[in-house]
């Protein structure tokens, strides 16, 4: 049983309410759930949609198949935009008052969304009517639904609460009595799912930051990275976190570097355009050997691009950004558990090696929600700050290139950092010998960088064909590839330095396919640069939507047959 429901409408019509309540209701009923929203860059109007997948098995990927589609607006505008996701098997529910010229084999069902909302008290309750209808179609116990409504609306006044309850009930009863669908809606519920964690990618990154000891975040709001900023702001009431909305991204990252300098553990969260402004300070971090964690939630560019949509096109930008030569680490989590883990780890790695660490996500990962059993283990982190001696040298030459990091007023030494080339004390120098030694010291720091997160191999050990992906495409590729016998998947969370176990799989594969949400196969370029490996096929998507499971599956079929 695997049902996919899409709800579409204008911004401001309350899809968000459904998008929050419906998954929670489903989970509390013991059902696995995955949700992802695609939306326009506008506050009102336009056309947005949310996919909610429901299954008795875990579901974690964006798919094309749509079993049930609800449009909150009259007319065809949303349906036409979602055309490629509607087929003969889709039940399309539109308002009874709606005229439709919609011409597909999809089964159109007119239901009285707006009139039931009016009956409940206000046309605005259409979203509650639809929620009721969804729950009714799945024959979920009404008590569960009612609990959800009360939790959500009870603080908005008794009248609003009562009327919404009525709207949900009317929707629920209507479909119960009037709608027959010849699709399987009987779901085996799994009681353990009721106790699962349900959260979004933005929450997972935020909690990972907290687990990494993050106590300072300075940023400028920018989709799709803002969720992390607001999440940490929410938690700042319960944990010691300084949250500052800076005047611009330049300020944000310089502030964060100042914070690390005096002993905080700072994060900046941004997207491509904002990160572009941070690049000079990234180079500063390289020079002063400051830790910094950069959450870079990608969206399609260039320039403003598609502000609310998804892409994986900033990998090489993150890798090569910053003038001069210095080391960095790039992680790209593949799902929520990994988003938590990578962000937590990013703080430790940044602190340990005194380098910038990127957590490279995207809108797809930020806005996805699903249930899972548990996050990785959280330990009390240990920092690497030392108490300084009177003759403290911030840039002391050491074998591994890492100098013990002191902070002002902690010990008897002075902590001097300089964006100019400097000597071991941090004072400006133009001594050619020292310059050489400092360059070599900075570049030596990751020499012994163990494979913190090795490439993750999933599938048949006797594979002939290998699909390689990174970041948020993980779950989509895994779902798409599961029925192919000689196929294995290699997912990369650690993109730089590339994990050393990668070459083993590259050598063993007869054929390699790279799946990337970008137009130029940036991971492919990286593999070529680092391993001299270029014998791969590519699958790219860059229209702003994540891959559908189905389109990867189609390509895999061709790939296995040697057609591509």
């Amino acid at each position, binding site marked *: 049983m695997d049902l996919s429901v899409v709800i579409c409408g204008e911004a401001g019509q309350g899809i968000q309410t459904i998008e929050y309540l419906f998954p929670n209701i489903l989970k509390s009923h013991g059902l696995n759930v995955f949700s992802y929203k695609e939306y326009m860059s506008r506050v009102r109007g336009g056309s947005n949609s949310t996919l909610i997948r429901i299954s008795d098995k875990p579901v974690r990927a964006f798919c094309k198949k749509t079993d049930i589609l609800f449009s909150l607006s009259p007319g065809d505008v949303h349906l036409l935009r979602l055309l490629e996701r509607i087929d003969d098997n889709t039940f399309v529910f539109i308002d009874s008052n709606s005229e439709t010229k919609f011409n597909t084999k999809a089964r159109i069902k007119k239901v009285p969304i707006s009139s039931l909302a009016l009956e409940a008290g206000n046309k605005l309750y259409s979203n509650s009517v639809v929620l009721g209808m969804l729950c009714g179609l799945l024959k979920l116990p009404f008590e569960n639904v009612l609990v959800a409504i009360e939790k959500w609306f009870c603080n908005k006044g008794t009248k609003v609460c009562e009327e919404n309850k009525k709207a949900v009930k009317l929707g629920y009863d209507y479909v119960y009595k009037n709608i027959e669908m010849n699709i399987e809606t009987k779901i085996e519920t799994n009681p353990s799912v009721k106790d699962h*964690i349900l959260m979004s990618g933005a929450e997972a990154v935020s909690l990972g930051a907290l687990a990494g000891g993050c106590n300072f975040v300075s940023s400028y709001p920018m989709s799709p990275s803002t969720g992390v900023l607001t999440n940490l702001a929410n938690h700042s009431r319960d944990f010691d976190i300084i949250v500052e909305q800076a005047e611009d991204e330049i300020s944000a990252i310089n502030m964060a570097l100042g914070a690390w300098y005096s002993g905080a553990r700072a994060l900046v969260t941004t997207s491509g355009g904002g990160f572009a402004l941070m690049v000079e300070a990234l180079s500063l971090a390289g020079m002063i050997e400051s830790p910094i964690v950069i959450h870079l939630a990608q969206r399609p560019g260039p320039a403003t691009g598609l502000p609310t949509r998804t892409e994986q096109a900033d990998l090489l930008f993150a890798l090569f950004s910053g003038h001069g030569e210095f080391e960095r680490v790039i992680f790209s989590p593949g799902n929520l558990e990994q988003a938590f883990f990578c962000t937590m780890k990013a703080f430790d790695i940044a602190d340990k090696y005194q380098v910038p660490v990127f957590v490279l996500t995207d809108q797809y990962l930020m806005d996805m929600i699903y249930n899972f059993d548990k996050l990785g283990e959280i330990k009390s982190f240990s920092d690497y700050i030392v108490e300084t001696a009177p003759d403290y040298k911030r840039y002391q030459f050491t074998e591994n290139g890492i100098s013990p990091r002191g902070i002002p007023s902690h010990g008897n030494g002075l902590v001097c950092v*300089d964006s100019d080339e400097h000597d071991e004390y941090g004072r400006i120098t133009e001594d050619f010998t020292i310059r050489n030694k400092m360059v070599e010291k900075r570049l030596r720091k990751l020499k012994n960088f163990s494979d913190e997160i090795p490439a993750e191999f999933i599938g048949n050990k006797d594979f002939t064909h290998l699909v390689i992906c990174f970041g948020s495409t993980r779950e989509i590729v895994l779902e798409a590839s599961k029925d192919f016998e000689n196929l294995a998947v290699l997912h990369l969370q650690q993109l730089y330095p590339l994990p050393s176990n990668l070459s083993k799989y590259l050598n063993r594969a007869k054929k390699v396919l790279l799946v990337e949400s970008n137009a130029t196969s940036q991971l492919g370029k990286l593999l070529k640069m680092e391993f001299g490996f270029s014998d791969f096929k590519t699958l790219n998507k860059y229209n702003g939507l994540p891959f559908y499971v189905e389109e990867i599956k189609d390509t895999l079929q061709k790939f296995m047959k040697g057609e591509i």
Partner: protein
Amino acid sequence: MATKFDIEGGDIAWCPGCGNYSIHNIVKTALQELDIDPKNLVLVSGIGQAAKAPQYIKCNYFNGLHGRSLPAAVGIKVSNPNLVVIVESGDGCMYGEGGNHFIHAIRRNSDITVLVHDNMVYGLTKGQASPTSEKGFTTPVQVNGVLNEPFNPIAIALSLKCSFVARAFCGDVQETKEIIKRAILHKGFSLVDIFQPCVTFNKINTYKWFKENTYYMKDHDETNINKAFEKALERSPLPLGVFYIEEKPTFESQQRVYKNSSEPLFKRKHNVEKLMNLIESKRRW
């Protein structure tokens, strides 16, 4: 006067006769007289001739990027409010490259002292106009003279109700030292715009010119913002002294994290159990 901030020997990169020397000595003396512990002092600067100041003084320093001294200083101070944080940079760094940060750092009201070496010209890049150059000032780039209105840091700061606003002239050692001491002691964002001649690239605004074109405000009410504005708009001669003081809560003092404890961030750790509970709470809703 010898101070505990002196560094023995060392090569100083400023031109002979530069106003930076005078400011440098005044700052060290002021710090000495205020009995500030070098280990507890962080000097923050950007880039430029003035921004080299931390190199020649014995204390902690963060010599960051051009124009970006203020955000770094804010991050340093708010993460450890026990530190004394002083920003020293030139007019180009602070008002040109860093203009946006200047505005917003004033709004934040961090308890930091900002000393701007204002010589109305770019030194390190060799003599181009600065935001504070007078109209008509000719340079290798502004060959027909500066067209733009000069930036008025005092008026800008006042428009943002900056907590402490002053202007000094480095040729007046005693007066400048007292202003700087007051600025350091003041709780809140303290701006001291310090006139200084550039003996190499500015042949107009010389020691003599500053002497002849400045005066000290007498009987000025430092708490009256309207009077302060009037004074700030005077250009010939230019008033010196403290224009305005407003006591108000600092950025640091308003942070929730310091509500119950003044411990700097590096001495704290998140409660792991509390975090686990937060994660566990996502099982219910």
